[in-house]
Protein backbone atom coordinates (compact mmCIF):
# COMPACT_ATOMS: atom_id res chain seq x y z
CA UNK A 1 0.00 0.00 0.00
CA UNK A 2 2.70 2.34 1.05
CA UNK A 3 4.81 1.30 -1.91
CA UNK A 4 1.99 1.79 -4.35
CA UNK A 5 1.39 5.26 -3.07
CA UNK A 6 5.02 6.08 -3.40
CA UNK A 7 5.19 4.67 -6.89
CA UNK A 8 2.17 6.71 -7.89
CA UNK A 9 3.78 9.83 -6.54
CA UNK A 10 6.99 9.13 -8.37
CA UNK A 11 5.30 8.49 -11.67
CA UNK A 12 3.15 11.58 -11.42
CA UNK A 13 4.55 14.68 -13.03
CA UNK A 14 5.88 17.21 -10.56
CA UNK A 15 4.32 20.62 -10.23
CA UNK A 16 7.28 22.19 -12.02
CA UNK A 17 7.05 19.75 -14.90
CA UNK A 18 3.37 20.49 -15.33
CA UNK A 19 4.07 24.22 -15.18
CA UNK A 20 6.75 23.76 -17.79
CA UNK A 21 4.39 21.90 -20.09
CA UNK A 22 1.73 24.55 -19.58
CA UNK A 23 4.11 27.39 -20.38
CA UNK A 24 5.45 25.69 -23.44
CA UNK A 25 1.95 24.99 -24.70
CA UNK A 26 0.97 28.63 -24.10
CA UNK A 27 3.86 29.89 -26.22
CA UNK A 28 3.19 27.31 -28.89
CA UNK A 29 -0.47 28.27 -29.16
CA UNK A 30 0.52 31.91 -29.72
CA UNK A 31 2.67 30.79 -32.61
CA UNK A 32 -0.06 28.58 -34.05
CA UNK A 33 -2.41 31.54 -33.84
CA UNK A 34 -0.14 33.68 -36.01
CA UNK A 35 0.06 30.89 -38.52
CA UNK A 36 -3.70 30.46 -38.48
CA UNK A 37 -4.06 34.19 -39.23
CA UNK A 38 -1.76 33.95 -42.23
CA UNK A 39 -3.58 30.91 -43.60
CA UNK A 40 -6.89 32.60 -42.82
CA UNK A 41 -5.95 35.72 -44.79
CA UNK A 42 -4.83 33.73 -47.81
CA UNK A 43 -7.87 31.42 -47.79
CA UNK A 44 -10.43 34.19 -47.18
CA UNK A 45 -9.10 36.52 -49.85
CA UNK A 46 -8.56 33.69 -52.31
CA UNK A 47 -12.13 32.43 -51.97
CA UNK A 48 -13.57 35.94 -52.17
CA UNK A 49 -11.36 36.78 -55.12
CA UNK A 50 -12.20 33.63 -57.03
CA UNK A 51 -15.94 34.21 -56.81
CA UNK A 52 -15.73 36.69 -59.70
CA UNK A 53 -14.69 33.80 -61.89
CA UNK A 54 -16.63 30.97 -60.25
CA UNK A 55 -19.87 32.62 -59.18
CA UNK A 56 -20.18 35.53 -61.61
CA UNK A 57 -18.63 33.57 -64.50
CA UNK A 58 -16.30 36.29 -65.67
CA UNK A 59 -13.63 34.70 -67.80
CA UNK A 60 -10.10 34.94 -66.49
CA UNK A 61 -8.96 36.19 -69.87
CA UNK A 62 -11.43 39.06 -69.87
CA UNK A 63 -10.30 40.01 -66.38
CA UNK A 64 -6.60 40.15 -67.18
CA UNK A 65 -6.78 41.52 -70.72
CA UNK A 66 -9.88 43.71 -70.67
CA UNK A 67 -9.19 47.43 -70.57
CA UNK A 68 -12.62 48.66 -69.52
CA UNK A 69 -13.33 48.69 -65.80
CA UNK A 70 -16.92 49.32 -64.89
CA UNK A 71 -18.21 46.16 -63.23
CA UNK A 72 -21.89 45.55 -63.73
CA UNK A 73 -21.98 46.92 -67.27
CA UNK A 74 -20.95 45.44 -70.59
CA UNK A 75 -18.29 46.50 -73.04
CA UNK A 76 -19.40 47.53 -76.56
CA UNK A 77 -18.36 44.09 -77.79
CA UNK A 78 -20.63 42.39 -75.30
CA UNK A 79 -18.15 41.19 -72.69
CA UNK A 80 -18.57 42.09 -69.04
CA UNK A 81 -16.64 45.27 -68.30
CA UNK A 82 -14.37 43.77 -65.67
CA UNK A 83 -11.03 44.44 -67.31
CA UNK A 84 -8.35 44.89 -64.70
CA UNK A 85 -5.51 45.54 -67.11
CA UNK A 86 -5.40 49.33 -66.56
CA UNK A 87 -4.89 48.86 -62.82
CA UNK A 88 -2.40 46.05 -63.24
CA UNK A 89 -0.41 48.10 -65.73
CA UNK A 90 -0.62 51.14 -63.45
CA UNK A 91 0.65 49.20 -60.44
CA UNK A 92 3.54 47.66 -62.34
CA UNK A 93 4.47 50.95 -64.00
CA UNK A 94 4.71 52.97 -60.78
CA UNK A 95 6.52 50.13 -59.01
CA UNK A 96 9.11 49.52 -61.72
CA UNK A 97 9.70 53.20 -62.46
CA UNK A 98 10.09 54.03 -58.77
CA UNK A 99 12.53 51.14 -58.35
CA UNK A 100 14.54 52.18 -61.40
CA UNK A 101 14.89 55.75 -60.17
CA UNK A 102 15.61 54.97 -56.54
CA UNK A 103 18.10 52.13 -57.04
CA UNK A 104 21.08 54.26 -58.20
CA UNK A 105 20.36 56.91 -55.56
CA UNK A 106 19.98 54.32 -52.84
CA UNK A 107 23.13 52.42 -53.75
CA UNK A 108 25.14 55.63 -54.09
CA UNK A 109 23.98 56.84 -50.70
CA UNK A 110 24.60 53.48 -49.07
CA UNK A 111 28.13 53.28 -50.53
CA UNK A 112 28.80 56.80 -49.28
CA UNK A 113 27.55 55.83 -45.82
CA UNK A 114 29.64 52.68 -45.51
CA UNK A 115 32.71 53.13 -47.73
CA UNK A 116 33.44 56.81 -48.18
CA UNK A 117 32.40 58.61 -45.05
CA UNK A 118 31.25 56.11 -42.42
CA UNK A 119 31.45 58.68 -39.63
CA UNK A 120 29.18 61.22 -41.25
CA UNK A 121 26.99 58.37 -42.46
CA UNK A 122 26.49 57.01 -38.97
CA UNK A 123 25.98 60.43 -37.45
CA UNK A 124 23.60 62.13 -39.87
CA UNK A 125 22.32 59.81 -42.58
CA UNK A 126 21.59 56.77 -40.44
CA UNK A 127 19.15 58.43 -38.02
CA UNK A 128 17.51 60.41 -40.82
CA UNK A 129 16.87 57.31 -42.96
CA UNK A 130 15.56 55.50 -39.89
CA UNK A 131 13.12 58.31 -39.23
CA UNK A 132 12.05 58.40 -42.87
CA UNK A 133 11.41 54.65 -42.98
CA UNK A 134 8.98 55.25 -40.16
CA UNK A 135 7.10 58.19 -41.66
CA UNK A 136 3.49 57.16 -42.34
CA UNK A 137 2.48 56.80 -45.96
CA UNK A 138 -0.32 59.34 -45.63
CA UNK A 139 2.28 61.99 -44.87
CA UNK A 140 4.10 61.08 -48.07
CA UNK A 141 0.76 61.28 -49.84
CA UNK A 142 0.07 64.72 -48.39
CA UNK A 143 3.48 66.02 -49.46
CA UNK A 144 2.91 64.45 -52.87
CA UNK A 145 -0.37 66.27 -53.13
CA UNK A 146 0.97 69.65 -52.07
CA UNK A 147 4.45 69.56 -53.65
CA UNK A 148 4.82 66.86 -56.30
CA UNK A 149 1.47 67.28 -58.06
CA UNK A 150 1.85 71.07 -58.58
CA UNK A 151 5.47 70.50 -59.65
CA UNK A 152 4.48 67.93 -62.27
CA UNK A 153 1.63 70.15 -63.43
CA UNK A 154 3.93 73.12 -63.94
CA UNK A 155 6.82 71.26 -65.51
CA UNK A 156 5.21 68.50 -67.54
CA UNK A 157 1.69 69.84 -68.00
CA UNK A 158 -1.60 68.05 -67.57
CA UNK A 159 -3.45 67.97 -64.29
CA UNK A 160 -0.43 66.82 -62.35
CA UNK A 161 -2.19 63.67 -61.24
CA UNK A 162 -0.86 60.52 -62.84
CA UNK A 163 1.74 57.80 -63.03
CA UNK A 164 4.61 60.29 -62.89
CA UNK A 165 3.47 61.84 -59.60
CA UNK A 166 2.89 58.37 -58.18
CA UNK A 167 6.39 57.39 -59.24
CA UNK A 168 7.96 60.41 -57.58
CA UNK A 169 6.11 59.83 -54.32
CA UNK A 170 7.02 56.14 -54.29
CA UNK A 171 10.62 56.97 -55.18
CA UNK A 172 10.99 59.06 -52.03
CA UNK A 173 9.05 56.51 -50.02
CA UNK A 174 11.08 53.43 -50.88
CA UNK A 175 14.43 55.24 -50.97
CA UNK A 176 15.03 55.02 -47.19
CA UNK A 177 13.96 51.36 -47.16
CA UNK A 178 16.40 50.41 -49.91
CA UNK A 179 19.18 52.57 -48.43
CA UNK A 180 19.00 51.05 -44.97
CA UNK A 181 18.86 47.47 -46.27
CA UNK A 182 21.71 48.09 -48.74
CA UNK A 183 23.80 49.56 -45.92
CA UNK A 184 23.26 46.36 -43.93
CA UNK A 185 24.38 44.19 -46.81
CA UNK A 186 27.45 46.37 -47.53
CA UNK A 187 28.40 46.20 -43.87
CA UNK A 188 28.22 42.41 -43.95
CA UNK A 189 30.99 42.26 -46.58
CA UNK A 190 34.09 41.25 -44.58
CA UNK A 191 36.72 43.97 -44.16
CA UNK A 192 39.48 41.71 -45.43
CA UNK A 193 37.87 41.74 -48.88
CA UNK A 194 38.55 45.47 -49.02
CA UNK A 195 42.02 45.12 -47.55
CA UNK A 196 42.93 42.37 -50.01
CA UNK A 197 41.71 44.44 -52.93
CA UNK A 198 43.64 47.52 -51.85
CA UNK A 199 46.74 45.46 -51.19
CA UNK A 200 46.60 44.41 -54.83
CA UNK A 201 46.82 48.08 -55.77
CA UNK A 202 43.18 48.68 -56.63
CA UNK A 203 41.90 52.21 -56.20
CA UNK A 204 39.06 52.96 -53.81
CA UNK A 205 36.57 53.04 -56.66
CA UNK A 206 37.85 49.77 -58.12
CA UNK A 207 37.47 48.18 -54.69
CA UNK A 208 33.94 49.47 -54.33
CA UNK A 209 32.83 48.59 -57.84
CA UNK A 210 34.60 45.28 -58.39
CA UNK A 211 34.72 43.82 -54.90
CA UNK A 212 32.32 45.30 -52.38
CA UNK A 213 29.32 45.79 -54.64
CA UNK A 214 29.85 42.39 -56.30
CA UNK A 215 30.02 40.64 -52.96
CA UNK A 216 26.94 42.45 -51.68
CA UNK A 217 24.86 41.94 -54.84
CA UNK A 218 22.39 39.41 -53.36
CA UNK A 219 21.76 41.69 -50.40
CA UNK A 220 21.26 44.69 -52.67
CA UNK A 221 18.87 42.74 -54.87
CA UNK A 222 16.89 41.75 -51.78
CA UNK A 223 16.73 45.40 -50.77
CA UNK A 224 15.40 46.38 -54.19
CA UNK A 225 12.79 43.62 -54.15
CA UNK A 226 11.69 44.76 -50.69
CA UNK A 227 11.37 48.30 -51.96
CA UNK A 228 9.33 47.11 -54.92
CA UNK A 229 7.08 45.05 -52.68
CA UNK A 230 6.48 48.12 -50.56
CA UNK A 231 5.76 50.25 -53.62
CA UNK A 232 3.42 47.66 -55.11
CA UNK A 233 1.38 47.33 -51.93
CA UNK A 234 1.33 51.01 -51.03
CA UNK A 235 -2.21 52.24 -51.09
CA UNK A 236 -2.96 55.68 -49.75
CA UNK A 237 0.07 57.70 -50.82
CA UNK A 238 -0.41 56.53 -54.39
CA UNK A 239 -4.17 56.85 -54.30
CA UNK A 240 -3.85 60.50 -53.32
CA UNK A 241 -1.69 61.52 -56.30
CA UNK A 242 -2.50 59.19 -59.17
CA UNK A 243 -5.83 60.67 -60.16
CA UNK A 244 -7.96 57.54 -59.82
CA UNK A 245 -9.25 57.10 -63.34
CA UNK A 246 -9.46 53.44 -64.24
CA UNK A 247 -8.29 54.06 -67.79
CA UNK A 248 -5.39 52.57 -69.65
CA UNK A 249 -2.46 54.96 -68.98
CA UNK A 250 -1.55 56.57 -72.33
CA UNK A 251 1.23 58.71 -70.96
CA UNK A 252 2.83 59.35 -67.62
CA UNK A 253 0.91 62.50 -66.79
CA UNK A 254 -2.67 61.43 -67.46
CA UNK A 255 -4.75 60.28 -64.50
CA UNK A 256 -4.49 56.54 -63.95
CA UNK A 257 -5.05 54.05 -61.16
CA UNK A 258 -3.40 51.15 -59.43
CA UNK A 259 -4.80 48.00 -57.85
CA UNK A 260 -4.54 49.54 -54.40
CA UNK A 261 -6.05 52.88 -55.35
CA UNK A 262 -9.13 51.27 -56.89
CA UNK A 263 -9.48 49.07 -53.83
CA UNK A 264 -9.33 51.89 -51.31
CA UNK A 265 -11.58 54.14 -53.34
CA UNK A 266 -14.14 51.52 -54.31
CA UNK A 267 -14.58 49.10 -51.44
CA UNK A 268 -16.83 51.44 -49.47
CA UNK A 269 -19.19 52.08 -52.39
CA UNK A 270 -20.11 48.52 -53.27
CA UNK A 271 -22.46 45.98 -51.72
CA UNK A 272 -21.00 42.75 -50.38
CA UNK A 273 -21.62 39.85 -52.74
CA UNK A 274 -22.36 41.96 -55.82
CA UNK A 275 -20.27 41.67 -58.96
CA UNK A 276 -18.82 45.14 -58.36
CA UNK A 277 -17.65 43.98 -54.96
CA UNK A 278 -16.39 40.56 -56.09
CA UNK A 279 -14.33 42.21 -58.81
CA UNK A 280 -12.62 44.35 -56.18
CA UNK A 281 -11.78 41.25 -54.18
CA UNK A 282 -10.22 39.77 -57.28
CA UNK A 283 -7.95 42.82 -57.41
CA UNK A 284 -7.06 42.17 -53.77
CA UNK A 285 -6.24 38.60 -54.73
CA UNK A 286 -3.89 39.82 -57.47
CA UNK A 287 -2.24 42.04 -54.85
CA UNK A 288 -1.88 39.11 -52.47
CA UNK A 289 -0.40 36.85 -55.15
CA UNK A 290 2.11 39.54 -56.11
CA UNK A 291 3.10 39.96 -52.47
CA UNK A 292 3.67 36.19 -52.21
CA UNK A 293 5.69 36.35 -55.42
CA UNK A 294 7.96 39.08 -54.01
CA UNK A 295 8.41 36.94 -50.93
CA UNK A 296 9.40 33.96 -53.03
CA UNK A 297 11.85 36.13 -54.94
CA UNK A 298 13.51 37.26 -51.71
CA UNK A 299 13.81 33.64 -50.57
CA UNK A 300 15.28 32.60 -53.88
CA UNK A 301 17.86 35.40 -53.86
CA UNK A 302 18.68 34.68 -50.23
CA UNK A 303 19.30 31.01 -50.88
CA UNK A 304 21.46 31.68 -53.94
CA UNK A 305 23.67 34.32 -52.44
CA UNK A 306 23.79 33.84 -48.69
CA UNK A 307 27.07 35.04 -47.25
CA UNK A 308 28.86 32.03 -45.79
CA UNK A 309 31.22 33.33 -43.17
Amino acid at each position, binding site marked *: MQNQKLAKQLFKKSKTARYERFGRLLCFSA*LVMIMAIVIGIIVFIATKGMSTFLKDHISVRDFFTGTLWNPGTKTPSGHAAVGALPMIVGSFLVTILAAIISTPFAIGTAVYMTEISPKRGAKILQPVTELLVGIPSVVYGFIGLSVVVPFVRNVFGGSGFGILSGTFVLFVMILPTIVSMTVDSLKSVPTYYRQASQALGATKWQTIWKVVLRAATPGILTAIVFGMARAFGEALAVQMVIGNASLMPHNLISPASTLTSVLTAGMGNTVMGSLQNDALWSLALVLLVMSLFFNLLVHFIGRKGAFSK
Partner: protein
Amino acid sequence: MNRSQKQSRFAIAVLKGIAGFVVLILAFLIGYIFITGLPNINWRFLTAPAKAFSSGGGIGIQLFNSFYLLILAMLISLPIALGASIYLNEYAKDNWFTAMIRTSIEILSSLPSVVVGLFGFLLFVVHYKFGFSIISGALTLTIFNLPLLTRNIEESLATVPDDQRQGGLGLGLSKYETIIHIVVPAALPGIISGIILCSGRVFGEAAALIYTAGQSAPALDFGDWNPFNIDSPLSPLRPAETLAVHIWKINSEGIMPDLTKVSSGSAAVLVLAILIFNLSARYIGRKVFEKMTSMD
Protein backbone atom coordinates in the same frame (compact mmCIF):
# COMPACT_ATOMS: atom_id res chain seq x y z
CA MET B 1 48.02 60.79 -61.53
CA ASN B 2 47.19 57.83 -63.74
CA ARG B 3 43.94 56.96 -65.40
CA SER B 4 42.47 54.65 -62.78
CA GLN B 5 43.21 57.12 -60.01
CA LYS B 6 41.46 59.86 -61.95
CA GLN B 7 38.56 57.53 -62.55
CA SER B 8 38.42 56.72 -58.86
CA ARG B 9 38.39 60.38 -57.90
CA PHE B 10 35.66 61.13 -60.38
CA ALA B 11 33.52 58.22 -59.28
CA ILE B 12 33.82 59.13 -55.62
CA ALA B 13 32.89 62.72 -56.41
CA VAL B 14 29.79 61.40 -58.19
CA LEU B 15 28.91 59.23 -55.20
CA LYS B 16 29.28 62.21 -52.90
CA GLY B 17 27.02 64.17 -55.20
CA ILE B 18 24.38 61.46 -55.08
CA ALA B 19 24.56 61.24 -51.31
CA GLY B 20 24.33 65.01 -51.08
CA PHE B 21 21.28 65.05 -53.32
CA VAL B 22 19.57 62.40 -51.21
CA VAL B 23 20.36 64.35 -48.06
CA LEU B 24 18.78 67.38 -49.71
CA ILE B 25 15.61 65.44 -50.51
CA LEU B 26 15.38 64.06 -46.99
CA ALA B 27 16.09 67.44 -45.42
CA PHE B 28 13.47 69.05 -47.66
CA LEU B 29 10.90 66.43 -46.61
CA ILE B 30 11.43 66.87 -42.91
CA GLY B 31 11.79 70.63 -43.25
CA TYR B 32 8.63 70.91 -45.32
CA ILE B 33 6.58 68.91 -42.83
CA PHE B 34 7.72 70.94 -39.85
CA ILE B 35 7.89 74.39 -41.45
CA THR B 36 4.41 74.21 -42.93
CA GLY B 37 2.94 72.22 -40.07
CA LEU B 38 4.32 73.50 -36.79
CA PRO B 39 2.84 77.05 -37.01
CA ASN B 40 -0.62 75.48 -37.16
CA ILE B 41 -0.19 73.51 -33.98
CA ASN B 42 -1.50 74.99 -30.78
CA TRP B 43 -3.41 73.66 -27.82
CA ARG B 44 -6.79 74.40 -29.37
CA PHE B 45 -5.86 72.56 -32.58
CA LEU B 46 -4.79 69.53 -30.59
CA THR B 47 -7.94 69.35 -28.50
CA ALA B 48 -10.82 70.78 -30.55
CA PRO B 49 -13.06 68.44 -32.56
CA ALA B 50 -12.78 68.46 -36.35
CA LYS B 51 -15.14 70.55 -38.47
CA ALA B 52 -16.33 69.27 -41.82
CA PHE B 53 -17.53 72.45 -43.52
CA SER B 54 -16.09 75.44 -41.72
CA SER B 55 -12.57 76.43 -40.79
CA GLY B 56 -11.08 76.27 -37.33
CA GLY B 57 -11.46 72.55 -36.74
CA GLY B 58 -9.00 70.62 -34.62
CA ILE B 59 -7.87 67.05 -34.33
CA GLY B 60 -8.71 66.31 -30.70
CA ILE B 61 -10.92 63.26 -31.22
CA GLN B 62 -8.67 61.84 -33.95
CA LEU B 63 -5.63 62.17 -31.71
CA PHE B 64 -7.42 60.43 -28.85
CA ASN B 65 -8.61 57.68 -31.19
CA SER B 66 -5.08 57.11 -32.48
CA PHE B 67 -3.70 56.63 -28.98
CA TYR B 68 -6.63 54.53 -27.81
CA LEU B 69 -6.36 52.19 -30.81
CA LEU B 70 -2.60 52.00 -30.38
CA ILE B 71 -2.88 51.01 -26.71
CA LEU B 72 -5.61 48.43 -27.39
CA ALA B 73 -3.72 46.92 -30.31
CA MET B 74 -0.55 46.72 -28.23
CA LEU B 75 -2.37 45.12 -25.29
CA ILE B 76 -3.77 42.42 -27.57
CA SER B 77 -0.66 41.80 -29.63
CA LEU B 78 1.98 41.88 -26.89
CA PRO B 79 1.10 38.56 -25.16
CA ILE B 80 0.75 36.78 -28.50
CA ALA B 81 4.00 38.18 -29.87
CA LEU B 82 5.83 37.45 -26.63
CA GLY B 83 4.62 33.84 -26.56
CA ALA B 84 5.41 33.29 -30.21
CA SER B 85 8.87 34.80 -29.95
CA ILE B 86 9.69 32.81 -26.80
CA TYR B 87 8.72 29.61 -28.57
CA LEU B 88 10.69 30.52 -31.69
CA ASN B 89 13.84 31.55 -29.86
CA GLU B 90 13.87 29.11 -26.92
CA TYR B 91 11.95 25.97 -27.82
CA ALA B 92 11.75 25.64 -31.58
CA LYS B 93 13.96 23.02 -33.17
CA ASP B 94 15.54 23.67 -36.51
CA ASN B 95 13.15 21.65 -38.64
CA TRP B 96 10.66 22.07 -41.47
CA PHE B 97 7.86 23.09 -39.12
CA THR B 98 9.84 25.99 -37.67
CA ALA B 99 10.91 26.99 -41.16
CA MET B 100 7.28 27.01 -42.25
CA ILE B 101 6.25 29.16 -39.31
CA ARG B 102 9.08 31.61 -39.98
CA THR B 103 8.03 31.81 -43.61
CA SER B 104 4.45 32.53 -42.67
CA ILE B 105 5.53 35.31 -40.31
CA GLU B 106 7.61 36.79 -43.12
CA ILE B 107 4.63 36.58 -45.47
CA LEU B 108 2.45 38.34 -42.92
CA SER B 109 4.99 41.12 -42.44
CA SER B 110 5.29 41.75 -46.16
CA LEU B 111 1.55 41.76 -46.92
CA PRO B 112 0.34 45.15 -48.12
CA SER B 113 -1.48 46.82 -45.25
CA VAL B 114 -4.52 47.37 -47.43
CA VAL B 115 -4.84 43.57 -47.80
CA VAL B 116 -4.65 43.19 -44.02
CA GLY B 117 -7.30 45.90 -43.74
CA LEU B 118 -9.58 44.13 -46.20
CA PHE B 119 -9.18 40.89 -44.28
CA GLY B 120 -10.11 42.70 -41.08
CA PHE B 121 -13.10 44.21 -42.86
CA LEU B 122 -14.23 40.78 -44.05
CA LEU B 123 -13.72 39.02 -40.72
CA PHE B 124 -14.47 41.57 -38.00
CA VAL B 125 -16.73 44.13 -39.66
CA VAL B 126 -18.83 41.87 -41.87
CA HIS B 127 -18.59 38.36 -40.48
CA TYR B 128 -18.56 39.05 -36.73
CA LYS B 129 -20.72 42.15 -37.25
CA PHE B 130 -18.58 44.45 -35.11
CA GLY B 131 -19.21 47.17 -37.69
CA PHE B 132 -16.78 50.03 -38.22
CA SER B 133 -15.53 50.17 -34.67
CA ILE B 134 -12.59 50.55 -32.35
CA ILE B 135 -12.57 46.82 -31.71
CA SER B 136 -12.41 45.91 -35.41
CA GLY B 137 -9.64 48.45 -35.86
CA ALA B 138 -7.66 47.23 -32.85
CA LEU B 139 -7.87 43.59 -33.95
CA THR B 140 -6.80 44.47 -37.49
CA LEU B 141 -3.90 46.54 -36.18
CA THR B 142 -2.94 43.53 -34.08
CA ILE B 143 -2.62 41.40 -37.21
CA PHE B 144 -0.63 44.16 -38.85
CA ASN B 145 1.62 44.53 -35.80
CA LEU B 146 2.22 40.87 -34.86
CA PRO B 147 4.97 39.89 -37.31
CA LEU B 148 7.15 42.93 -36.67
CA LEU B 149 6.71 42.82 -32.90
CA THR B 150 7.44 39.09 -32.84
CA ARG B 151 10.62 39.61 -34.81
CA ASN B 152 11.74 42.50 -32.60
CA ILE B 153 11.15 40.58 -29.37
CA GLU B 154 12.81 37.48 -30.77
CA GLU B 155 15.89 39.52 -31.68
CA SER B 156 16.17 40.92 -28.17
CA LEU B 157 15.72 37.44 -26.66
CA ALA B 158 18.51 36.19 -28.90
CA THR B 159 20.93 38.78 -27.51
CA VAL B 160 20.65 37.34 -23.98
CA PRO B 161 23.83 35.27 -23.45
CA ASP B 162 23.44 31.53 -22.90
CA ASP B 163 25.22 31.80 -19.53
CA GLN B 164 22.05 33.32 -18.13
CA ARG B 165 20.00 30.32 -19.25
CA GLN B 166 22.56 27.86 -17.93
CA GLY B 167 22.61 29.74 -14.63
CA GLY B 168 18.86 29.38 -14.29
CA LEU B 169 18.83 25.72 -15.25
CA GLY B 170 21.80 25.07 -12.95
CA LEU B 171 19.80 26.46 -10.02
CA GLY B 172 17.15 23.87 -10.70
CA LEU B 173 14.59 26.05 -12.46
CA SER B 174 12.65 24.49 -15.27
CA LYS B 175 13.18 25.84 -18.75
CA TYR B 176 9.97 27.86 -18.73
CA GLU B 177 10.76 29.32 -15.31
CA THR B 178 14.22 30.25 -16.55
CA ILE B 179 12.70 32.02 -19.53
CA ILE B 180 10.07 33.91 -17.56
CA HIS B 181 12.21 34.87 -14.58
CA ILE B 182 15.64 35.31 -16.17
CA VAL B 183 15.70 35.54 -19.96
CA VAL B 184 12.71 37.85 -20.49
CA PRO B 185 13.78 40.32 -17.76
CA ALA B 186 17.30 40.33 -19.18
CA ALA B 187 15.91 41.10 -22.61
CA LEU B 188 13.51 43.73 -21.29
CA PRO B 189 15.37 46.84 -22.52
CA GLY B 190 15.35 45.46 -26.06
CA ILE B 191 11.74 44.37 -25.78
CA ILE B 192 10.65 47.82 -24.61
CA SER B 193 12.53 49.52 -27.47
CA GLY B 194 10.89 47.08 -29.87
CA ILE B 195 7.42 47.83 -28.53
CA ILE B 196 7.92 51.57 -28.85
CA LEU B 197 9.29 51.27 -32.39
CA CYS B 198 6.30 49.15 -33.41
CA SER B 199 4.03 51.72 -31.78
CA GLY B 200 5.35 54.31 -34.19
CA ARG B 201 4.44 52.12 -37.13
CA VAL B 202 0.99 51.32 -35.78
CA PHE B 203 0.35 54.97 -34.93
CA GLY B 204 0.84 56.08 -38.53
CA GLU B 205 -1.05 53.24 -40.19
CA ALA B 206 -4.08 54.27 -42.18
CA ALA B 207 -4.74 51.81 -45.00
CA ALA B 208 -5.56 48.97 -42.60
CA LEU B 209 -7.99 51.18 -40.69
CA ILE B 210 -10.10 52.81 -43.40
CA TYR B 211 -12.44 49.84 -43.65
CA THR B 212 -12.16 48.60 -40.08
CA ALA B 213 -12.14 51.50 -37.63
CA GLY B 214 -14.08 53.62 -40.07
CA GLN B 215 -13.71 57.11 -41.46
CA SER B 216 -15.90 59.09 -39.11
CA ALA B 217 -15.25 60.53 -35.69
CA PRO B 218 -18.55 61.13 -33.90
CA ALA B 219 -18.51 63.60 -31.05
CA LEU B 220 -17.44 62.14 -27.75
CA ASP B 221 -18.55 62.97 -24.25
CA PHE B 222 -15.27 63.23 -22.38
CA GLY B 223 -17.13 63.29 -19.04
CA ASP B 224 -18.44 59.78 -19.52
CA TRP B 225 -15.86 57.05 -19.03
CA ASN B 226 -18.27 54.11 -18.96
CA PRO B 227 -17.15 51.90 -21.86
CA PHE B 228 -20.68 50.60 -22.41
CA ASN B 229 -22.08 53.99 -23.42
CA ILE B 230 -21.72 54.68 -27.12
CA ASP B 231 -20.73 58.34 -26.53
CA SER B 232 -17.99 57.40 -24.12
CA PRO B 233 -14.42 57.79 -25.38
CA LEU B 234 -13.72 54.26 -24.17
CA SER B 235 -16.62 52.61 -26.00
CA PRO B 236 -15.15 49.84 -28.18
CA LEU B 237 -18.08 49.75 -30.58
CA ARG B 238 -17.99 53.34 -31.84
CA PRO B 239 -16.39 54.23 -35.18
CA ALA B 240 -13.03 55.90 -34.73
CA GLU B 241 -11.20 57.85 -37.38
CA THR B 242 -7.54 58.10 -36.44
CA LEU B 243 -5.19 60.97 -37.20
CA ALA B 244 -3.58 59.19 -40.16
CA VAL B 245 -6.97 58.31 -41.63
CA HIS B 246 -8.06 61.91 -41.06
CA ILE B 247 -5.17 63.23 -43.20
CA TRP B 248 -6.11 60.86 -46.01
CA LYS B 249 -9.83 61.55 -45.70
CA ILE B 250 -9.68 65.34 -45.78
CA ASN B 251 -7.18 65.33 -48.62
CA SER B 252 -9.27 63.05 -50.79
CA GLU B 253 -12.71 64.46 -50.12
CA GLY B 254 -12.45 67.24 -47.56
CA ILE B 255 -14.19 70.53 -48.30
CA MET B 256 -13.28 72.69 -45.33
CA PRO B 257 -11.69 76.02 -46.31
CA ASP B 258 -8.60 75.56 -44.14
CA LEU B 259 -7.84 72.12 -45.55
CA THR B 260 -4.12 72.63 -46.13
CA LYS B 261 -3.68 74.13 -42.69
CA VAL B 262 -5.40 71.22 -40.96
CA SER B 263 -3.60 68.60 -43.00
CA SER B 264 -0.15 70.14 -42.65
CA GLY B 265 -0.71 70.52 -38.92
CA SER B 266 -1.89 66.92 -38.65
CA ALA B 267 1.06 65.66 -40.68
CA ALA B 268 3.46 67.53 -38.42
CA VAL B 269 1.80 66.09 -35.31
CA LEU B 270 2.04 62.60 -36.79
CA VAL B 271 5.71 62.92 -37.70
CA LEU B 272 6.48 64.55 -34.37
CA ALA B 273 4.83 61.61 -32.60
CA ILE B 274 6.88 59.13 -34.65
CA LEU B 275 10.03 61.12 -33.88
CA ILE B 276 9.24 61.01 -30.17
CA PHE B 277 8.56 57.27 -30.39
CA ASN B 278 11.91 56.71 -32.14
CA LEU B 279 13.93 58.80 -29.71
CA SER B 280 12.22 57.48 -26.60
CA ALA B 281 12.71 53.90 -27.80
CA ARG B 282 16.46 54.45 -27.57
CA TYR B 283 16.35 56.49 -24.39
CA ILE B 284 13.95 54.31 -22.39
CA GLY B 285 15.67 51.11 -23.50
CA ARG B 286 18.99 52.45 -22.26
CA LYS B 287 17.52 53.75 -18.99
CA VAL B 288 15.85 50.42 -18.20
CA PHE B 289 19.10 48.65 -18.98
CA GLU B 290 21.06 50.95 -16.66
CA LYS B 291 18.51 50.56 -13.90
CA MET B 292 18.50 46.78 -14.16
CA THR B 293 22.23 46.29 -14.35
CA SER B 294 23.30 48.80 -11.70
CA MET B 295 24.70 47.22 -8.57
CA ASP B 296 23.44 49.58 -5.88
